[in-house]
């Protein structure tokens, strides 16, 4: 080895460890190349015993290289002795080199053929020679960086936890802030955008046979309303192209529009789902009969009969984009299991939008308003997503 080069490497080690690493890597490699030659030389000439062992072991040049590398700096004699010792110790090595069994004794020659068709074969780990103080420097730097990163992630992750969770963990400080809300909602919005990109108007959701029907529970958020509202129920349409406000009763709707049946899965945000048999008119047909104003992109679907958990009025309102409203499987359902809707399931008319979570499937719809901008949304105001696409 050239001492000049050696000094260079040491010099750069002091100033820039990264640089030293590459340089040393290269020098280590060239070292190994030359040592490999001398090694196989000595294997053949100086030590017939080692040659015998090599024959038996079918030494992989890669491995000779690795062995040579570990012995850089020793003398030739020591190298051979060491290798011989290693060969004696582990004869089971040839498990991996089965096909090379008949290869003649020369250790360093049959390299390229083996490597060429073994792209996926595991290679020995690359070795680097480093001065101990550089190694210490690397360790100190990396462990320190790791510690800083860990603390930062811990703090950042903890900050993002819900306030209730933090309070339970004994954190007194209120971490809720507009920034935190913004960040978390940003993630929700990204998911909404992905969902929108996945959505295809022409894609139908799977439909099922009647034998697949499963029980559907009443998941009214609050108290189920008293059926008294049904007799006076009317559907009011607003935001129409005509500029008028239209009011329809259930008989109007059922006589004007064809009724479609479908058996689809209703999926709740809570995770449960049910396959249910519905019938009703298509939202799309209603949109054709009473076209929305031209700039409308959204429908605000409301139910004024909704109650909260203590039985007080708690109007329910949901945003539906018009593309979803026009989906051929989006119904204004009037029947469930072949019977008119019961109050549990939103009599006399509920929105059935199988491409959205159950919470968008507004029960007992009393008003639909077409608007240009994304309207308010009951559950979005309570921390859920706006889009809720399935």
């Amino acid at each position, binding site marked *: 080895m050239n*001492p000049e080069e050696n000094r260079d490497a040491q010099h750069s080690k002091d100033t820039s460890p990264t640089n030293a690493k590459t340089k040393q890597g290269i020098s280590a490699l060239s070292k190994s190349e030359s040592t490999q030659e001398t090694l196989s030389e000595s294997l053949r000439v100086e030590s017939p015993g080692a040659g015998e062992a090599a024959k038996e072991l079918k030494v992989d040049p890669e491995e000779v290289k690795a062995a040579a590398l570990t012995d850089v700096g020793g003398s030739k004699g020591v190298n051979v002795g060491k*290798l011989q010792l290693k060969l004696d110790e582990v004869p089971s090595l040839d498990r991996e080199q089965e096909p090379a069994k008949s290869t003649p004794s020369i250790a360093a020659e049959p390299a390229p053929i083996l490597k060429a068709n073994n792209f996926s074969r*595991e290679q020995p780990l*690359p070795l*680097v020679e480093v*001065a101990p103080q550089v190694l210490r420097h690397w360790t100190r730097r990396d462990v320190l960086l790791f510690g800083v990163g860990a603390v930062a992630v*811990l703090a950042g992750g903890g900050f993002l936890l*819900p306030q209730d969770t933090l309070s339970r963990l004994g954190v007194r400080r209120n971490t809720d802030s507009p920034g935190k809300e913004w960040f978390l909602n940003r993630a*929700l919005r990204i998911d909404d955008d992905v969902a929108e990109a996945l959505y295809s108007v022409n894609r139908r959701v799977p439909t099922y046979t009647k034998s697949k029907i499963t029980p559907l529970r009443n998941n009214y958020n609050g108290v189920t309303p008293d059926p008294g509202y049904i007799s006076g129920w009317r559907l009011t349409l607003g935001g129409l192209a005509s500029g008028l406000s239209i009011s329809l009763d259930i008989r109007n709707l059922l006589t004007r529009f064809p009724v479609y049946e479908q058996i689809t899965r209703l999926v709740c945000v809570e995770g449960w789902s049910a396959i249910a048999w519905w019938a009703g008119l298509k939202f799309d047909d209603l949109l054709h009969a009473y076209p929305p104003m031209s700039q409308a992109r959204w429908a605000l679907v409301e139910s004024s009969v909704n109650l909260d958990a203590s039985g007080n009025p708690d109007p329910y309102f949901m945003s539906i984009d018009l593309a979803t409203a026009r989906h051929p499987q989006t119904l204004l359902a009037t029947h469930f299991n072949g019977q008119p809707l019961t109050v549990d399931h939103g009599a006399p008319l509920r929105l059935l939008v199988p491409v959205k979570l159950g919470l968008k499937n507004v029960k007992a719809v009393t008003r639909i308003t077409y608007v240009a901008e994304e309207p308010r949304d009951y559950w979005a105001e309570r921390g859920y*997503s706006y889009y809720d696409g399935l």
Partner: protein
Amino acid sequence: MGHSTLTYNEPTTTSTFPDKPDVLVAKKHQLLVRWSHWLNVPILLGLILSGISIYWASPIYQHKPDPITGNTDVAADIGTWICAHVPGLHHYSSPPDWIYNHMSLGPYMLASALRLHWLCAYLFMLNGLLYLAGLALGGGWRALLPRRTDLSDIPRMLWYYIGLPFAKLANRKWLHPGFNTKYNALQRAAYFSIPVAGLLSVATGWAIHKPMQLYWLAALFGGYNAARVWHFWLMWVFIFFALTHVVLVLADGWDTLRSMIVGWSTKVKGSEGLENEP
């Protein structure tokens, strides 16, 4: 390696071989692999905590309502059992919530849990890409590929691990099966399975997140409900792996733990296939 007998300052003008007191280190883990490895810790923690809060809203393991409490949730039963039998927990205020209070963000947290779950899920997918990039760039994927010899080597390794504590107790020698690869057969199986489990978690996650647009994906796992069961148990695969992983790494020592931080290891494998301590 311990051949650094000459001192550092001695001039080396005549010698053919350098007498630097250098140490050999093996480059073990690519930078991106290390990054993604550690990022998995907070991400998986976030996914599990929020995931169990989501699970609370509609547990897949339910039974008929309890006549007294109306409880249907098996996890709530476990919480009740824990509070009844573990000393010091007898006065826990809401035993059915014990699991949810200790393994999740808490009950009644569906909205925040979903929000956090989506955030972590996207980070998990990005992190997975980071990991794959690291495997590709560093060539580390080769060390993870299963090989035919694993079939016989895995039982050997299992036998070693099972016998090790007893051998230690009996103060007897218990030889580690030899191997000349980066990982032993059992490690390889585990480190290969975990990315696969990650992939399956992502796939089942999408299947239950978008069961209408991606209904074919849900069908691949046996339908929407079955995909939820898959997703749930894949979480336990991660939990079980992580616990075992941590115990074994700590047992293996500082060099192994450090190598995931700094990338290199001073355990340099020679052709003999056994590890040499420096």
